[in-house]
């Protein structure tokens, strides 16, 4: 079976179709980070997205998620928000 098999293609389409939902979650994470400083939620969601997007070949998106996670770990709110915005922008462009 190659990556071009119909089943894998189908999975890829299904993954792409989940982008609006993923975008909504990351937007929620951004808003919670801004209003309640909820770092845990943002980190968890970015971690999930980093893993799945990388597996489906969206390496740049995965790298941006990882970079945002690292910024969150440094507790630098401003650069964390900027990094999350980059993820949002990238997800948005793929919808």
């Amino acid at each position: 079976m190659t990556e071009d098999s119909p089943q894998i293609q189908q999975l890829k389409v299904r993954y792409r179709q989940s982008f609006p939902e993923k975008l909504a979650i990351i937007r929620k994470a951004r808003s919670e980070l801004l209003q309640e400083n909820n770092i845990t939620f943002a980190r968890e969601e970015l971690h999930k997205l980093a893993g799945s997007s990388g597996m489906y070949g969206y390496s740049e998106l995965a790298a941006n998620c990882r970079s945002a996670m690292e910024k969150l770990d440094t507790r630098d709110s401003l650069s964390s928000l900027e990094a999350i915005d980059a993820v949002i922008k990238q997800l948005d462009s793929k919808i």
Partner: protein
Amino acid sequence: MRVCESSSNIKDYGFPELQPGQVIDDAIDFMIGMDVNTKLDLPFVASPNGMSISVSLVPCGDNLTVLISDVSDTTEQRRKLQQAANENELLVERQKKLMAELERASRKLEQKNRQLEEASRLQTSFLSGVSHEFRTPLTSIIGYTNLVLNNLQKTGDEQKGLADCNNDYLSAVQRSSKHLMSLVENLLDHGKLDSDEIVLKPKPNSLKQLIDDVELVLRPLSETKGIEFNVIPPYNETATVMVDDSRLRQCLINLIGNAIKFTDQGSVTVDFNYANDTLQVSILDTGIGISEEDMNKIRLPFYQASGTGKIGTGLGLTITERIINMMGGALDIFSELGEGTLVKFNVHASDLGSLDLDSATRELIKTKSLDILLAEDDPFIADLMILMLKDWNIDVTHVVNGALAVEAVQSHNFDLIIMDIHMPVMSGYEAVLELNRIGSTIPVIVMSASAVEADQKRAAELGCSAYLTKPVDVQEIIETADILLSQ
């Protein structure tokens, strides 16, 4: 002289109480003959606050006022004067401090300025270096392409023997294109390192294969220059090591390539040693060496040693050192101008024993039915992995959290467990702890999107057999499974 009035506290100063109309000389004898506007000190008479006092006669209209005062005013004045002097001294001290701070700030500013100038100079030199680097292969590509086009336009007898010629020209074009590609890759790597985008992907590798590959790439370069090229493999070269082979190869090619590049006669000797999960490499050349001044700057990005006549981007060593550091190692350079150079570095590479990684073994896995437990909460990742693993004749049981994984292990005998870390209900780490507690010996491959060293360390501490960073491809899982199941 008679008393007009007296203050009520005169007794406190040891004088008798005076009544208006009383002759003052009768009451205070020492005033007899005392002149107006003079001051008489009485050191043996004390005021209520213990100070010695003085007496003065001061004209006040038609009367005379007898002023009795102690020296507390003077003391207060002295105190104030002393305070003023102290404050003045403090001010001088503060001023001195400020001046020193100003001087320090000024020196710092000058240093920053010099650094900025140096950065600007390096950038300019980098741009001109890059332009030159691009121009050289591009000129070659354009030139040789023109020659091929000219040849193709020739007809009849002119065409004879041109095929070989064209082959040579096209080979030159290919070489230049490859060089351009490596230049661009270097530039991209540098950018990625700056934004921490490079993630290491260690996987099982044959040490011998790795060393052979590097030798194969670099030997032609040494032959072209006519220098001796010696590669000394480690005594345990058959070991399989867990390392990011592509990044290690990049470091080796860069450092050994540099040694060959800067050696015009003599030899380059590369010595590999492998022990205690650490690969040590030393590269000794008989080249032009590095001056003390260049040695201090050679690790800076874009810096290129002066007077070498060699052109590059000045990024290779910077990138290499940073990758070596990422691999848990360090780089040392020992050199003197005209005396050759010794470069030593080490990287962490876990020993997986002497295992055969050839395709036949992998084929064995493919034909042997494997039973794998996959604990992954993300349905998109799980579905993709199930689909890909099934192609390798692997049965996959999928669970969505650590608790279910522990439950599954208790009711079924799996060959291998692939465990995500971040899962609801029970995390991958908690599940591994629980599996250890119940005495499970099934190898666990931890899989996570986190490339953080602490996570990898924790997995190792818990006794996990391997740690793969997402995105993982199925080949990686198969190779790791192959090694783990052969042990």
